[in-house]
């Protein structure tokens, strides 16, 4: 067994342990922490499997925004799961059978890592071979994401937009007015305040770096948006939600959400003017490569804008509505 296989297996075992712990634990807080760990480990595994872009995203999502949202939810709901009262037999059987079916399905699969597997020989080779000449950027994932399958990504932006709108619709009515509320900064916490203040700038810069270097390395609009939003969220956590709202009002965030989608969708329309099909960026520049490059830059920016804005507005919605938990409920 190679080292790679050992790493692979140990990370998978790790994931299994984590997942099992999540299943078993009834302290929801621990469950949330563990699910963040699950994300971290799976991201490590993804790096190991060469999916660096995915790992980037999984980490940003799982360890960052998901955790924050889950904590916010726990803050608003409860922190302990009640002991299950229902019979667990039926779910167990269903799940077991599903798993068995899948295992049965693996028997005819190409072996792990097989370079002759169908997926390695049919569509993908063209991406690897032609990205340089057709798109002109090194990161094939970005090329496929934003151009070859750019419409999927427009769909993806729409998904995140939908989630943002949905959360607003569900929770906006419950955001409490600031009157009568003390702006709750962590004001006694000198160390946190100072360090956070110092880090926000670099974090945002890192976000923008990820945004604009998605063509060359792992990263892109989605990851950048998440990081940018994280910077903002940490500001809101430390310096108070109300201050964060003053810096970027909710309504502005909402409009930015829309702007990102519009930017992406709008870029697609430009090709109509040149008689090309939707989302053909080649028309944007003097030659195909330049056009593709510019197009990818623009749509990635749209993605980043929407994602960042959605995350911020989602955080506003979650964090903005609740009373702190009373002692009885704690």
């Amino acid at each position, binding site marked *: 067994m190679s080292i790679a296989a050992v790493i692979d297996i140990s990370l998978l075992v790790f994931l299994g342990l984590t997942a099992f712990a999540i299943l078993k634990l009834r302290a929801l*807080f621990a469950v949330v922490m563990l699910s963040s760990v699950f994300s971290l480990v799976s991201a490590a595994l993804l790096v190991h499997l060469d999916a660096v872009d995915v790992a980037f995203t999984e980490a940003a999502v799982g360890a960052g925004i998901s955790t924050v949202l889950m904590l916010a939810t726990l803050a608003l709901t409860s922190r302990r799961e009640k002991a299950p009262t229902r019979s667990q037999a039926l779910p167990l059987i269903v799940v077991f059978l599903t798993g068995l079916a899948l295992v049965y399905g693996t028997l005819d699969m190409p072996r792990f890592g097989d370079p002759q597997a169908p997926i390695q020989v049919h569509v993908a080779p063209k991406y690897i071979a032609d990205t340089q000449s057709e798109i002109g950027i090194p990161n094939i994932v970005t090329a496929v994401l934003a151009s070859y399958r750019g419409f999927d990504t427009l769909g993806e932006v729409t998904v995140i937009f939908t989630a943002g709108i949905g959360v607003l619709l569900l929770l906006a009515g419950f955001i409490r007015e600031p009157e009568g509320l003390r702006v709750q900064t962590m004001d006694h916490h000198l160390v946190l305040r100072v360090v956070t203040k110092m880090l926000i700038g670099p974090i945002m810069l890192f976000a923008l770096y990820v945004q604009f270097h998605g063509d060359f390395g792992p990263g892109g609009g989605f990851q950048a948006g998440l990081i940018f939003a994280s910077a903002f969220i940490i500001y809101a956590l430390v310096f108070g939600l109300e201050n964060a709202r003053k810096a970027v009002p909710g309504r502005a965030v909402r409009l930015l959400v829309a702007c990102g989608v519009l930017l992406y969708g709008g870029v697609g329309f430009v090709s109509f003017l040149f008689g090309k099909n939707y989302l053909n960026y080649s028309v944007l520049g003097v030659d195909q490569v330049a056009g593709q490059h510019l197009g990818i830059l623009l749509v990635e920016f749209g993605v980043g804008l929407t994602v960042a804005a959605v995350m911020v507005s989602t955080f506003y919605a979650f964090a903005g509505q609740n009373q702190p938990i009373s002692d009885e409920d704690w």
Partner: protein
Amino acid sequence: MTALVTDAVSWAFLASGSFLVVVGALGLIRMPDFYTRLHAAGITDTLGADLILMGLMVQAGFSLVTVKLLLIGAFLFFTSPTSTHAIANAALTAGLNPRIADGAGAGTDSAAPEGDGK
């Protein structure tokens, strides 16, 4: 020759870093209460991490990679004590009293607001 030297140096860094990381994690399990565990965790977060990063830097030579490793190190340098401090502070404010050598206020794990029901 230089390759051998850098390899040896980096190997030393990595080995000692790995050792410290494992020791820190061991401490995380062995230590009797929350506050003492903080110290154990500190080992990993500081010297263990730094040594490994340095080992990697030596491997990478003078390049962008080294700079990024440095950035990671710097970031950890700022954030890890901050988090540790924040956790400790939160625990203390929440009324989790440390176990003190003289015996006063020992064994107050029960003050945990979140038991585990096991």
